[in-house]
């Protein structure tokens, strides 16, 4: 399954990609797709069997969606985010 995580900062995306890579999950940093959000920061797109590469999402994560044929399915959103 393909997932996209968005972040509160570019550095959050860098750290998350590193976390994915440490777990052997293929991940790349890219601009947030326009149809996902009107904000213009960095996101990480990763291919994984599980949506979260760690016991819980790091606090820099704003939201996580899965990429499906029907569009994006929201899986996680930070509190008050």
């Amino acid at each position, binding site marked *: 399954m393909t997932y996209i995580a968005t972040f509160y900062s570019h*550095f959050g995306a860098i750290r998350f990609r590193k976390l994915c890579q440490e777990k052997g999950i293929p991940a790349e940093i890219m601009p947030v797709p326009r149809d996902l959000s009107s904000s*213009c920061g960095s996101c990480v797109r990763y291919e994984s069997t599980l949506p979260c590469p760690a016991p819980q999402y790091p606090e*820099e994560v704003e939201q996580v969606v899965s990429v499906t044929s029907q569009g994006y399915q929201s899986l996680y959103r930070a509190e008050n985010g």
Partner: protein
Amino acid sequence: MPKTHEKTGIVLAGIAIGVIASLLVFFGNPVNMGFCIACFLRDISGALGLHTAPAVQYIRPEILGLVLGSFLLSVFRKEFMPRGGSSPLTRFVLGFFVMIGCLMFLGCPFRMILRLAGGDLNAVFGLLGFVCGILAGVFFLNKGYSLKRTYKLPTLEGAAFSAIQVALLVLLVAAPAFIYFSEAGAGPGALHAPILISLAAGLIVGALAQRTRLCMVGGIRDLVLFGEWKLLAGFIAILASALVCNLVLTGTGAGTFFTLGMEGQPVAHTDGLWNFLGMLLAGFGCVLLGGCPLRQLVLSGEGNTDSAITVLGLGIGAAFAHNFGLASSGTGPTANGKVAVVIGIVVVAVIAVANTVRTEKA
């Protein structure tokens, strides 16, 4: 939206924006100033009496339109998201010094493109400085620079900045005695397209910029960070279409919209070093803010109060620039302005370092 459509969309939006910018000059705006977020916010500060430079006082409908165009489209598309709380005062200070840099150069990044499209080669020095400033900002982004996270806010909070634009529109139309407007012949503030044309231009460009996330800083930033050309394609499309439109308008004998060279350019000076340093400050500050002044207006319309605070910083920066003699003029930069730009670069660098994670490595 598939990626290729997205790129086509931003190029088409850029072409439309370039034509609109060029036509605004035809309809009465100062030459090479169809749009200038820095100049127009400065004019609004003057109209409200926050500074008293008689040449640059007018409530520019383009600014009001940009915010409201973004507001209306984001509400319509359910993308209006009231949010804020991300280091607001730091953003205010960054906005303040971005304006000091812009008024050293005499234009925001948007006008820098329009000056290039009008043949003003002084803007090449500005562009070089702008790129260097963005590279400095990207360096800190990759080292861990981040302002604090944003939070959801009530709808009223997110809509307040758009409501302020409506209030400014009322002041523009009613023109009470306490609002200052540059008198005919006084300078760029007296040159403007009719209100309805300016407002419509702002609304259209605001909506297009909201839809495409167009950003003068984001283009170069994304190219450096991701090798992604999309936003930069919009930047180049504006340059190309405004250039063609300027040449066509000049060819039809409607006036002079294109003059290649450095000397005698409208609302510009020829000091290459300070054009460079002014835009370096602007580019550096804008990367730390996450977007150029145009983008800050668009985000404000979407309900982002951090961007609204940044716009207030830009406006107050403009008022200080004229009250303290920091803004350049056609004759060149001022000594005070040079000192302010150096202070600005130092302050922005300190903000960058202070907000960069140093204990944890990526």
